[in-house]
């Protein structure tokens, strides 16, 4: 894992001190709310529906045990004993008090964490494939580049006041687990024809009220040119991105209005004007960062563990958990474990402080001190010996963290919605709970198979509903919540935007509609098709007919 150098430490501590002073001045009245608002937002502090909300960055979703324990400590001491892991791999606390926030930031700084770049019109916390450095299918760990981008963007004067927020995601694998096509910039490490590793560069993806899939503007970029090329993209955006209308200010609108070809041409032209060697850090700095992400000290193991295979054979519940929650690791004898934060009927992404501490302990004992947060609001223990899987599963069960539902119907993404969020127009969480309870029987979930249900409580789409196989958008009309359903969205390497199927549903009937859609799929699928495969074959009509005939 990356460790702060002297510059990082000083920078983060200074920001804590500055914010402490800003809070003091706000409380004393020296700063007005209007003056204070941009300052608190630059430190991840929002004023929500019922309280402040502090969004803490988890850079590229990577944590160690000490950091997770600190998050648990903060949840207990300054909040209500839990935290909410988000679709940007961050954690949010829903109940901090303003005078406590500087102390919270101080505690975070103790473990090299902060809340910088989690709000405002800046380059936000860079997200990454949660299996980075572990996945069997990746060409290279993308996290050193994510860290490089963090350092490059944190204090860059050109990027502190962009037209709008700006989100970058990076992956090192062909299978897209980071939804890169839905980001302002999506980066994928890949090999060219000469077996050299570089970046495929996508620009202009996004959710919100105008969902768009990013355009590929470079099929392959030499790795060492990354920052210079990104700077060219940001300059074109800064120059032409609209600042007169916040709804048209994201780079996706610029790419759309200029056209991908013209946008690409302007970026390439700008790139020729950039003094690339000045932008790129020296090779030794890249090596210094990369060294922190060197593979941990893996044991030299046989790939097959007889102990593991025996448990898999003898314990059906364990075998089911392995099938859904365990993934192939690049290191022989190891596995990636996905820890579900989606108990049936639970709140997606929420974890109690006890659960955080349990995950921290297990990471330390069984996963080489590493934890990841996923954009699908789950956790990952990335480096587990196969021979330890059974023990790990038993421990996870004790803490209600062993649901074998990764990628199934109850592995729902839901934003905080109108239970917490000041921008929301409807609730998301109770809808996700209702659907989860309805479809929660594990045999039924397994019968349905891979299915991504994603729920947003407003058009800003923090719940990624556009990318849901079944997407649900909560809106409000005449004082009542109602829910629009989209079908056919996907956030993976075949990214697509879901299509609205028709008039919305009340909070009482939306779960019935979802169940009808699921049952319709089960009835029409062929040869083991997944939901999204079946949808792509038959289109929306059978689902519309079933849903609107039934309602």
């Amino acid at each position: 894992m990356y460790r702060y150098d002297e510059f990082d430490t000083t920078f983060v501590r200074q920001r804590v001190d500055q914010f402490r002073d800003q809070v003091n001045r706000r409380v004393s009245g020296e700063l007005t709310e209007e003056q204070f608002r941009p300052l608190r937002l630059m430190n991840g502090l929002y004023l929500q529906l019922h309280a402040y909300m502090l969004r803490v960055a988890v850079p590229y979703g990577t944590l160690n045990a000490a950091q997770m324990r600190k998050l648990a400590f903060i949840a207990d001491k300054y909040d209500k004993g839990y935290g909410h892991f988000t679709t940007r791999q961050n954690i949010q606390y829903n109940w901090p008090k303003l005078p406590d926030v500087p102390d919270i930031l101080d505690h975070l700084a103790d473990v090299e964490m902060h809340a910088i770049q989690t709000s405002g019109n800046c380059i936000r916390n860079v997200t990454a494939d949660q299996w980075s450095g572990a996945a069997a299918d990746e060409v290279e760990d993308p996290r050193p580049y994510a860290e490089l981008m963090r350092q490059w963007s944190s204090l860059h004067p050109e990027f502190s006041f962009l037209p709008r927020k700006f989100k970058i995601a990076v992956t090192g694998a062909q299978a897209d687990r980071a939804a890169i096509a839905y980001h302002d910039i999506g980066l994928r490490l890949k090999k060219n024809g000469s077996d050299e590793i570089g970046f495929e560069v996508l620009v202009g993806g996004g959710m919100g009220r105008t969902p768009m899939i990013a355009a590929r503007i470079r099929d392959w970029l030499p790795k060492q040119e990354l920052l210079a090329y990104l700077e060219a993209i940001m300059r074109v955006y800064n120059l032409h991105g609209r600042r007169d209308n916040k709804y048209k200010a994201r780079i996706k609108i610029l790419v759309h209005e200029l056209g991908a070809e013209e946008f690409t041409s302007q970026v390439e032209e700008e790139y020729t004007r950039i003094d690339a060697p000045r932008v790129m850090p020296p090779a030794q700095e890249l090596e210094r960062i990369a060294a922190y992400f060197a593979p941990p000290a893996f044991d030299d193991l046989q790939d097959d563990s007889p102990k593991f295979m025996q448990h898999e054979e003898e314990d059906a519940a364990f075998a089911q958990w392995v099938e859904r929650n365990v993934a192939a690791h690049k290191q022989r004898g190891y596995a990636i474990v996905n820890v579900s934060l989606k108990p049936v009927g639970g709140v997606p992404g929420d974890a109690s402080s006890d659960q955080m501490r349990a995950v921290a302990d297990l990471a330390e004992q069984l996963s080489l001190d590493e934890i990841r947060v996923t954009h699908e609001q789950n956790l990952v223990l990335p480096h587990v010996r196969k021979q330890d899987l059974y023990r790990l599963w038993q421990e996870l069960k004790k803490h209600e963290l062993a649901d074998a539902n990764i990628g199934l119907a109850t592995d729902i993404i839901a934003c905080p919605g109108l239970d917490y969020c000041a921008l929301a127009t409807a609730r998301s969480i109770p809808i996700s709970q209702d659907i989860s309870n309805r479809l929660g029987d594990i045999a039924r979930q397994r019968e349905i198979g891979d299915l991504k249900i994603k729920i947003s409580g407003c058009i800003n789409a923090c719940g990624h509903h556009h990318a849901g196989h079944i997407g649900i958008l909560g809106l409000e009309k005449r004082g009542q919540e109602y829910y629009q359903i989209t079908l056919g969205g996907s956030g993976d390497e075949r990214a697509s935007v879901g299509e609205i199927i028709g008039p919305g549903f009340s909070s009482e009937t939306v779960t019935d509609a979802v169940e009808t859609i699921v049952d319709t799929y089960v009835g029409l699928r062929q040869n083991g098709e997944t939901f999204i495969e079946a949808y792509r074959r038959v289109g929306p009509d059978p689902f519309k007919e079933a849903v609107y005939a039934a309602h």
Partner: protein
Amino acid sequence: MAKKITGPQVLTANQLSDGMAVFLSNDNVWLTSIENAQFARSEEEATDLEACALPAIRSNDIVDPYLIEIEETEAGPVPVEFRERRRIAGPSVQVTFNTRPNGQLALAS
């Protein structure tokens, strides 16, 4: 200039210290309950009611005051907008840990 209103209004804001929703009462005190909130029934009264926020803004007790429309019911004033009803009720979520079933989050013990 007087505000256009379509029904009775109450004045709400958030407490600076913890962000909690508060309502200006008949006694010109900011309370977390809407029950005894002061009403504005005309556009002139709405303008006057908004002005009542100034002392609490100046004393750094509240932020972001605004008027909300309510319906008068036997149980007391109820906001017309769903958002405001939720803001008063608190999260409906039954958080598995540290919560009570009535939707009011309990402090972690």
